[in-house]
């Protein structure tokens, strides 16, 4: 039996004990001394109205990622009795002496049979502060492809490190991919503090190594929390073992991240999804891609380049004065313009550039490598255009995180810098400034597979 399985088993003995104790687990505190800030929805009334935070978790199997997710779900009361019973049944079937919590996060038959995680899974929990969506990505197989997928929709990333091992090559890769995908809020959870006697120096040396390595990336918000996913310290509850650590727990960090402000502060962008005629007047249906818009504001419509003014902003409930990034609305303009799906309505001041020969970073997702002579479909916001590869400039060696230009070939899980020629322009912002306006996918026009994720430079 590998050390990995052992770690899970140890983790699960603890989980099992807690659940079957049919009392409040010890780490939750004595029931007679109700905690000042309960994490349970049930203790707080049900109508939490906080925002949503989507985060991705990265870590290799050895880092205890499944245990951490299990801990977050368990301590926020999301693992229910029948799910636990299913884990116990499956563990018995596999001949394990005690329940293996990784079976809770492995959903597919093949995964349970082979003890591996195949794909990105989404998990949910809520605290009185907000709702969380976790994109749980496997750390070993095809991690680049899966981590990029999980990170693409994430506001924040939790990267696991092992307190006894410090910063390893895989930690560098996880940090690199999270940063590449434009995540501004990254929390490094320095795990297995229980195995280093909860010592402050192990935490600090790991933290310092990450800080030094990440310095050139200029990550806007890089934080560190010492945790024991196994024992639960500093994940949801503080525990008693690390009184030297006075900063927020992992959950408190996640509760305090506010990703919406940055995207709302961007110039206004609105990718048109559909056009609707209401009593002879056109309405443009879509979701505010970036920024904020108010009725009466001057806008520019692309690709036509015609200017107009926001006449009204509609929702099902009626008209309103403004809309924010993320809001699904219908816009009416003061002028009757010819606008269709794939067009962009943008703030008149600071409209995006037209891009037809584009520089981009690609994460290659398909088993079939990039065909330098190939033709692809490029989907950017709601606009799909034909694309041709003009040049593969270099491919990143993700093991050493160095580019190499010679014989550049882009295969599954490779990251490369390419130049693409587009049949029609897209109207875009650099991905580093605006994720929604800089992201695209490449689709193979024959197989219809999504073959690459792209980020405009």
């Amino acid at each position: 039996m590998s050390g990995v399985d052992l770690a899970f088993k140890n983790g699960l003995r603890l989980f099992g004990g807690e659940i079957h104790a049919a009392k409040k687990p010890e780490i939750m505190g004595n029931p007679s001394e109700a905690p000042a800030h309960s994490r349970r929805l049930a203790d707080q009334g049900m109508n939490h109205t906080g925002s949503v935070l989507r985060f991705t978790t990265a870590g290799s199997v050895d880092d205890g990622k499944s245990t951490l997710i299990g801990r977050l779900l368990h301590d926020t009361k999301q693992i229910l009795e029948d799910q636990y019973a299913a884990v116990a049944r499956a563990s018995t079937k596999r001949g394990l002496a005690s329940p293996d919590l990784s079976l809770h996060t492995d959903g597919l038959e093949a995964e349970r049979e082979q003890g591996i995680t195949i794909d990105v899974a989404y998990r949910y929990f809520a605290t009185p502060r907000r709702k969380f969506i976790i994109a749980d990505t496997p750390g070993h197989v095809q991690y680049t492809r899966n981590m990029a997928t999980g990170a693409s929709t994430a506001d924040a990333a939790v990267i696991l490190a092992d307190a006894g091992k410090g910063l390893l090559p895989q930690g560098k890769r996880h940090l690199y991919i999270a940063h590449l995908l434009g995540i501004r809020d990254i929390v490094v959870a320095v795990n297995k503090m229980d195995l280093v006697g909860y010592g402050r120096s192990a935490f600090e040396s790991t933290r310092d190594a990450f800080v030094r390595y990440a310095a050139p990336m200029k990550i806007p918000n890089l934080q560190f929390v010492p945790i024991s996913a196994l024992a639960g310290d500093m994940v949801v509850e503080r525990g008693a073992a690390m009184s030297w650590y006075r900063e927020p727990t992992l959950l408190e960090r996640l509760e305090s991240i506010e990703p919406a402000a940055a995207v709302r502060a961007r110039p206004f962008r609105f990718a048109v999804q559909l056009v609707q005629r209401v009593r002879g007047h056109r309405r443009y249906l879509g979701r505010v891609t970036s920024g904020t818009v108010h009725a009466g504001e001057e806008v520019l419509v692309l690709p036509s380049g015609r200017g107009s003014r926001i006449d009204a902003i509609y929702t099902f409930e009626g008209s309103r004065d403004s809309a924010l990034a993320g809001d699904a609305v219908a816009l009416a303009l003061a002028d009757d313009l010819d606008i269709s799906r794939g067009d962009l309505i943008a703030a008149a001041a600071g409209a995006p550039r037209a891009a037809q020969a584009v520089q981009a970073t690609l994460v290659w997702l398909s088993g079939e490598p990039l065909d330098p002579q190939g033709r692809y479909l490029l989907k950017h916001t709601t606009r799909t255009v034909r694309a041709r590869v003009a040049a593969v400039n270099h491919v990143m060696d993700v093991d050493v995180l160095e580019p190499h230009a010679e014989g550049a070939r882009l295969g599954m899980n490779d990251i490369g810098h390419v130049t693409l020629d587009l049949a029609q322009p897209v109207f875009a912002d650099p991905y580093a400034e605006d994720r929604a306006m800089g992201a695209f996918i490449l689709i193979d026009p024959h197989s219809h597979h999504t073959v690459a994720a792209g980020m405009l430079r």
Partner: protein
Amino acid sequence: MTPDRSHLDWLESEAIFILREVAGECARPALLFSGGKDSLVLLRLAEKAFRPGRFPFPLLHIDTGHNFPEVIAFRDRRAAELREELLVRSVEDSIARGTVRLRSAGESRNAAQSVTLLEAIGEFGFDAAIGGARRDEEKARAKERVFSFRDGYGQWDPRNQRPELWDLYNPRVNAGEHVRVFPISNWTELDVWQYIGREKLEVPSIYYAHRRPVVRRNGLLVPVTDLTPPGAGEAVEAVSVRFRTVGDVSCTCPVESVATTVDEIIAETVATRVTERGATRMDDQTSEASMERRKREGYF
């Protein structure tokens, strides 16, 4: 200071965006509507996405013939109120055609729905079927895409799914293939009830507590109906119950409850120690992978 958006606002906007992407990219979509709570939420989201216009798709119900009568009455009334087209295709008809063969007359028709659904998709040439499945319902569903590809046989290949990044969905298919689209993938049971409460949506009466004859079997409360009579020696009790999910009569069980309002259901949902399907579905418990196997074969 900008006004904040609640989690329900966020989920709603995401779902509206997804519904509009289906309308923008797919030639012939349909929305699966059963009268159950998740599909009622979908209908409200479709209103928000497309009103004052018509829905750019018909509603489609796959009728197992084993229904709770309240739900079917509700289904018809809601479709009529919305003045949208409702198509109904029946498992009975598939049985008559011989495409569904049951081992016994009273057998659960839950899995047989897949056959009728695929027949309807073929009959109308649908290239997208929008459904109310959620990732939190079941672990095979946790790995499901928002736009989930189905091959010419309606099969789901969980190990070979299209990567789905950002909100750049890829619904492209060849003739005979289709996508399933799940706009409320990211909602939980609690989110659904909170939304029903916020939007003041009407749901079939059996979602609220009522007294019903049941027998206790394998930890489940099995409703006593013509299709599910009590077994020999089983005691029939009248218990105050409500349904958390509403499906085929022969495999859906209620839970004990006194909740007669949405707020009371929300309170019970927050406090529950058992999942939505764990407490209520006989067929999900037959094997560790029953949902995954049904989904591979075209089930929702």
